[in-house]
């Protein structure tokens, strides 16, 4: 038998050698591409994915810490994540569910099914839809560490970067609320003096509380609350946070988002408005202490 293989090898020597060379070249190309990508990476990259009407925000740092805030409506998030995650990467460090509405939770169910998730951060509020129930089930099946935000907490990761949760300040574990927006997780990312505020679907009452208690100050980028609805982004709040950039995550909808008044108020505090429905996925990079924003359709 070995002689038979030797014979086969001799007869196809050239082919086999060429095959080996092309395999080596392919391997070299792949590893070259990997290191090139690594060298190009910013300190912090934040993707405001274009997932239609909903929120899905992905934060990645240079050292590879990955956090996903909300998953958007069904069947949107996975292709977006597939594009930004490296091929062999099948895990996320943390996912955050800001509140259990369908346009925030659905994609997270899919993410839990596909990726290994180490930590789940949420308010714990209960909601009656099948999506919210399914999410609870998926989290317990995943066996991930579950963190209920019930007071101001912060998570430090790369080079002094911090993700701070500003609200809620009490536990909503298993609570049934008239308006689940009241339990929304509001968070802020701080890195070398740059501040990005994620408002989820927080409404007027939460904005007032944040401004009154002095929990927020001047920020660089504001993820506008509730997809640009008129329930949010009150003048007094905007004057406190004074964003340079305002990002609205939305798609075609029947609620009239974004409300023209909101757009006016944002413009009047001098914010440059970026929308996922018209510009696609919005990518924010912090690189050499500079904020760089671009959009990708």
């Amino acid at each position, binding site marked *: 038998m070995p002689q038979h293989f030797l014979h086969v090898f001799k007869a196809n020597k050239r082919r086999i050698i060429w095959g080996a060379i092309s395999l080596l070249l392919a391997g070299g190309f792949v590893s070259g591409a990997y290191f090139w990508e690594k060298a190009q990476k910013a300190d912090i990259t934040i993707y405001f994915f274009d997932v239609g009407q909903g929120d899905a925000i992905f934060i990645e740092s240079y050292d590879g810490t990955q956090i996903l805030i909300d998953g958007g409506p069904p069947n949107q998030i*996975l*292709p977006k*994540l597939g594009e930004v995650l490296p*091929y062999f990467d099948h895990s996320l460090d943390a996912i955050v569910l800001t509140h259990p509405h369908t346009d925030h939770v*659905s994609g997270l*169910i899919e993410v839990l099914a*596909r990726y290994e998730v180490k930590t789940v951060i949420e308010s714990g509020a209960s909601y009656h839809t*099948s*999506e919210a129930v399914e999410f609870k089930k998926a989290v317990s099946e995943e066996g991930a560490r579950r963190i209920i935000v019930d007071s101001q907490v912060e998570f430090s990761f790369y080079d002094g970067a911090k993700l701070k949760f500003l609200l809620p300040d009490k536990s909503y574990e298993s609570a049934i609320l008239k308006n689940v927006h009241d339990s929304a997780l509001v968070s802020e990312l701080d890195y070398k003096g740059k501040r990005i505020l994620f408002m989820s679907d927080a409404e007027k009452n939460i904005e007032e509380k944040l401004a009154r208690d002095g929990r927020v100050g001047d920020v660089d980028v504001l993820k506008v609350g509730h997809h640009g609805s008129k329930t949010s982004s009150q003048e007094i709040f905007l004057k406190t946070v004074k964003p340079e950039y305002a990002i609205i995550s939305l798609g075609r909808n029947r609620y009239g988002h974004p409300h023209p008044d909101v757009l006016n108020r944002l413009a009047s505090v001098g914010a440059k408005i970026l929308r996922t429905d018209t510009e696609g996925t919005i990518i924010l990079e912090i690189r050499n202490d500079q904020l760089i924003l671009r959009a990708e359709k």
Partner: protein
Amino acid sequence: MVKITPYLLLAFLGGVMLRSFFDIPRDWILAASGLAIGFLIIFYFFKFDSKFLFFNLLFLVFVLGILRFSVFENKIAADKLHNYYGQTITLQGRVLSNALKQNSSRIVLETDLGRILIVKRIYPEYKYGDVLEVSGKVAEPEPYAGFDTAKFLAKQQIYSQMLFPEIKKIDYAPNKFLSSLFFIKDKFTKQLKTVLPEPYSSLANGMLLGEEGVLPKDILDSFRKSSTIHILVLSGYNITIVGSFIMSFFGFFLPAAFAWAISVAGIVLFTLMTGAEPAAVRAALMAIIGLVALRTGRQYLAISALLWAAFFMILWNPMYLRFDRGFQLSLLATLGLILLSSRLFKKLWFLPKLMGIREAASSTVAAQIFVLPLLISWGNEISYLTVPANMVIVSLVPTIMLFSFLSGIFGFIFLPISAIFAVVPYLLIKFQIYAATFFARF
């Protein structure tokens, strides 16, 4: 006698085809068959020349084809649900299949009164064998965007639908054999999905199983515009090519007959892994016939085998002929492979024989020429770059299928190997999407 069989089979298919486009009154069909049988009797007594007998038999079989379709369509008589159109009722039934759409999912429910299509929210998900109680309004399927939904559903003997009913799961009572097939399929696709990210895994799955599933709209649009969307229809032709890959790989160090047997076994394994759904079984049958043609090079044998296979499938369900894209694609592409590829092989003398490039090109072009009329009849946009676009995009499908399949199989054994195999479909699909966006621009 043997020589006329292919013509008779064609006549039968022709009858079914005619009837699937036009409604022919039953009286006419009965009169025509009476006529044909009458002539046959006359022939028996008067002994005209055999040409007369030939055309008479042809006519008789043609009419039988028409009759087969009419009889099948009358199956609606056995369905009782269509008597409840417009009424709100509560039904109990077993889930036969479950398909995910962009914002909803569709399940087919087998009830005592007949089959019904249920459109529901994505969650909670139900699987094959679940027994559900649904209450809602029974309705007639409506045409959607110029698409005759009712006929497509009638193919599966579904004549009614229910939109967003109240659903309660009451039991799980599957058929043991089928549920184990579904289990394998589920496991297989899950393995593939853990190693391949989206949208690549959905596309790989679509090519393997012929399910469109849920894909980003811009990607689907590019495939549509470059008239290559049929990569998501499972075609026996592609399986034939996969089989020939396996054959040439093992042919490298094993006797040809062994290599052939292994590749047929590979196709059977593939069919099992993909749940042995009727569409996959049909495609696999055609693929094995295609392999016979490639292996023996005997055209007549291959064609009559293909026609017999088509005949039995159409006899089983005559609606496939017009309403099942997988069937149409398999039939025509395999026919092109049998009839044209060896001739093209000589014409393409300028291509190198190295690594089977010329062979691959000739079979792709042959299949493509035969499939082109189908693409037009499906109402796809046909650009003048259709042929190069298909050469580039569709000819990658068998390689993607082979490596996704290997990756899925190795997922059962050792995940890292599975991930390495999946690199091939990952890169090739990336290229396909890129090429489709490029060709869609013209």
